[in-house]
């Protein structure tokens, strides 16, 4: 490489160097621009997104579960309350070996097979990161043992939890219901109704009874502690706190003592009873026997106990008052009589001669009266008092099934009463139209005949019977039954009375109603079908007996209760109100396989009246399985 003069060469070299410096400067500016562009993107364009992420990093909401409202009877006796207890809970994801932890735990404290079964069921239903209770209501000693051995039990934690206690026992189970652990189905429901957020700190939710139907009021509003947490999840400080709002307390119309009296009056029988205040619709007692222990469900029931309860032939989980459907039998007669008068089919003085049966024209089939040889000359008053079947056979035929349907439907037969519990059955009030729709078959005249005495298709719940009877007692006011009388705000401690839910007023001519009511009063007097149950009462009762057939009886055969084993005996029905002149209580009773209403169901109603109206508690009232038939 031949060299030019050093000086010139140096100049050229310097020029080139300066050129390269400019390239270097441009390169640096380019890099700086890239950095600032990236910063602009992050800090200006994406700022909202990143500030949100930073806030999410920093702030965690710790839900504070509210205390659940109490459920009190009308005299403020506690039916459902809360208590705090220590529970041993396991989180599967945090145990290295679940079985090993379980084995360690059972070396330290006693885990019953039932608890273990329940745990495994809950475990199967939950996610890996959920905590599942193994044993609740730990004793202080157990808590101490577990605390001392914590390091040996990875994934196990002792936590203080709020529980629900139903000290009123099995008799109140169908009213109060129970809460249970929130399951996937509950969560789905909460999500769909937009209430999921409010249950973030909650473990339990009402599953049945009032716990279910008043869930929203009882639960209250979940509070949140807004905590600032560092990267390791440790709470650094509390930012703000939205305190939980406790659930509202419920005061019922129901009287726990009255309920106990009614339950006791059933003796060994199963069945249902509901007592209403005819003026408010308030449910004074609601018994469905047998009951069950609602406390079993609070922290998850073990599968075997659940199976036993669910598959028991006695069906303890079924609320017979709301869901038991039976033919109303003779208890329909006062309503039929009223329909006859109001629709102008009968006058009070109209009589028939009852030969002991009824036959349709051009038919030899005999619809028999329960009384052999018949009741002779019968008007409506007598027909109710003596429960004359023939009178009502004929009345039904004269009225026709459709008019019968339309009138009876005004008493809430065939529709929900609107009680503040879920799962009520509508029963069934038949009509020509219904049969066509349901069975695609024509209505037969014979079906009208037996409908007149509450047999055939007609099905009713004890609650519907009581609601209808209340209309006889209060002069036609259709009131929805209510368990809850008042609601207490936990903050102000003020009881807010719940409104009486009047659905409508049925216009009944007073003279028509008087005839029916007189008939019902005579049911309870000598010569009436439940006279025995009213003997010695300090007040007057108006009532009506009935039987609901369990097995059909062949034409010409005779029903003989003493020959039937108990499970095939008829269900005994009884509706009544008292005092007859100025009713304050209405009762409907259904005794399963109780035979005749007058002998098994009416005495139960009497015990309820006695306690409610005079405060008299029954002695050691023991019902014999009376087999007396009419």
């Amino acid at each position, binding site marked *: *490489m031949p*060299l030019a003069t*050093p000086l010139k*060469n140096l100049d050229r*070299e310097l020029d*080139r*160097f*300066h050129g*390269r*410096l400019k*390239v*270097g*400067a441009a*390169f*640096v*500016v380019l*890099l*700086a621009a*890239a*950095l*600032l562009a*990236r*910063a*602009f993107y*992050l*800090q*200006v364009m*994406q*700022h909202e*997104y*990143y*500030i949100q*992420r*930073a*806030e999410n*990093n*920093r702030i965690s909401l710790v839900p504070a579960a509210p205390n659940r409202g109490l459920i009190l009877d009308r005299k403020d006796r506690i039916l459902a309350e809360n208590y705090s207890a220590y529970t041993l809970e396991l989180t599967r994801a945090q145990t290295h070996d679940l079985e090993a932890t379980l084995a360690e735990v059972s070396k330290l404290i006693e885990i019953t097979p039932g608890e273990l079964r329940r745990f495994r069921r809950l475990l199967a239903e939950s996610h890996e990161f959920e905590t599942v209770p193994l044993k609740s209501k730990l004793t202080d000693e157990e808590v101490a043992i577990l605390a001392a051995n914590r390091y040996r039990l990875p994934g196990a934690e002792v936590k203080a939890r709020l529980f629900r206690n139903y000290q009123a026992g099995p008799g109140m189970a169908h009213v109060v219901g129970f809460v249970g652990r929130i399951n996937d189905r509950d969560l789905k429901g909460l999500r769909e109704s937009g209430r999921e957020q409010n249950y973030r700190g909650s473990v339990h939710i009402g599953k049945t009874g009032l716990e279910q139907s008043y869930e929203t009021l009882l639960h209250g509003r979940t509070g949140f502690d807004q905590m*600032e*947490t*560092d*990267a*390791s999840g440790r709470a*650094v400080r509390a930012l703000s706190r939205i305190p939980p709002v406790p659930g509202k307390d419920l005061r019922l119309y129901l009287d726990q003592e009255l309920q106990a009296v009614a339950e006791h009056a059933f003796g060994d029988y199963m069945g249902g009873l509901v007592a209403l205040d005819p003026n408010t619709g308030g449910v004074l007692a609601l018994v469905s026997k047998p009951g069950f222990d609602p406390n079993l469900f609070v922290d998850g029931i073990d599968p075997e106990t659940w199976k036993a309860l669910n598959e028991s032939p006695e069906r303890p989980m079924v609320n017979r008052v709301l869901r038991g459907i039976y033919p109303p039998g003779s208890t329909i007669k006062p309503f039929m009589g009223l329909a006859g008068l109001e629709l102008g089919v009968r006058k009070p003085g109209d009589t028939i001669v009852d030969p002991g049966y009824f036959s349709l024209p051009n038919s030899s089939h005999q619809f028999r009266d329960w009384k052999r040889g018949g009741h002779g000359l019968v008007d409506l008053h007598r027909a109710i008092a003596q429960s004359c079947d023939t009178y009502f056979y004929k009345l039904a035929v004269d009225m026709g099934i459709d008019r019968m349907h339309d009138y009876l439907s005004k008493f809430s037969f065939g529709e929900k009463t609107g009680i503040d519990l879920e799962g009520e059955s509508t029963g069934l009030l038949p009509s020509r139209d219904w049969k066509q729709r349901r069975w695609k078959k024509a209505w037969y005249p014979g079906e009208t005949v037996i409908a007149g005495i509450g047999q055939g298709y007609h099905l009713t719940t004890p609650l519907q019977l009581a609601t209808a009877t209340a209309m006889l007692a209060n002069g036609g006011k259709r009131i929805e039954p209510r368990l809850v009388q008042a609601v207490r705000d936990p903050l102000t401690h003020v009881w807010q009375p719940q409104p009486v839910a009047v659905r409508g007023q049925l216009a009944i001519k007073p003279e028509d109603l008087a005839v029916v009511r007189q008939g019902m009063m005579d049911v309870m007097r000598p010569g009436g079908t439940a006279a025995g149950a009213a003997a010695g009462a300090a007040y007057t009762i108006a009532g009506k007996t009935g039987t609901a057939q369990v097995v059909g009886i062949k034409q010409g055969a005779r029903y003989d209760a003493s020959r039937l084993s108990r499970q095939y005996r008829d269900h005994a029905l009884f509706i009544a109100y008292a005092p007859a002149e100025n009713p304050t209580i209405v009762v409907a009773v259904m005794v399963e396989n109780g035979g005749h209403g007058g002998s098994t169901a009416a005495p139960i109603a009497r015990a309820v009246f006695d306690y409610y109206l005079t405060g008299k508690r029954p002695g050691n009232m023991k019902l014999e399985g009376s087999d007396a038939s009419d």
Partner: protein
Amino acid sequence: MPRTSHWILRGLRHVDGILLTLVLLLLGVSLAVVASASGQSPARISGHLINIGLALGVMVLMANVPPHLLAKVGPPLYVAGVVLLLGVALFGEIRNGARRWLDLGFMAFQPSELLKLALPLMLAWYFQRNETVLRAKHFLVAGALLVVPFLLILRQPDLGTALMIGASGFYLLFFAGLPWKVILGGATLGAASLPVVWGLMHDYQQRRVLTLLDPSSDPLGAGYHIIQSTIAIGSGGLFGKGWMQGTQNQLDFIPERTTDFIFAVFGEEFGYAGAILLVGLYLAIVARGLVIAARAPTLFGRLMAATLSLNLFTYVFVNMGMVSGILPVVGVPLPLMSYGGTALVTLLLGMGILMSVATHRQLNKS
């Protein structure tokens, strides 16, 4: 006493006022950010102050060393560095899966740090020595001088440091006049060999690159650092959350936040406005460095000043790019901002060299 103050005054004569001002401004910002990032830890702050004092002393000292003396230090320093690298390869201590450290008994030492200055000094010395007879073979020799330490560091393995040292060597060759066709040819060749390089990369290096491309693929593992630092920067917004108010910082979400990730703290607390000012300060230093290079009377001075300036910004770019999620995570501190004595001393040593080049104008014209 007058004698001492006389020496101090004489020493300060070689300090470049503009560069000093810019450096002090950056160090002031650094002190504030380290204080915030360490949760006002007295140990960290005083440690940082000591490092700053020490490094400033070294800077002033270097400013007084005339460039021709500096040039003479180049070859022995380079040789020593390469020998030590060989020592590391043979007897080095393995930490975190890489053989980078040499246990000197009283302290552990990374020889690769030494090369950061030794390589440019060596190359600048070499070009100055052959200034008048510069030919293609000199570039070849210079290239060999560059590749030896580069490969030694690469196989430690320490890709980040190797690339940074390679970059400084390349800048020097570039300013020395490496022909464009060689540069472009090399770039084409490099791009073509990327797949081969990928195959030679270690698992953790590949993972870093992959994590960079999609941090959310591993949000709790390798991606966590990048995710948290970008959240910090992004949440800072236009004007930041205020000094000591950054929640990502104060609540420990930012990793390594006094050292490699200090820019995340800065970005969170001072926002985009702060970032512009910070980058502006770095650009000002680079600009001053390039001016010094342009005015330098000797080839050695020109090459050193230009290379050190570009090198500084390369560190800035690699660090900020990593923290804001556009470059892979490599352990490179942010110049003059990150806590850490070695890096600070090395940097201010470089600033001292710049000042020496700037102030020894006529003195070494021999």
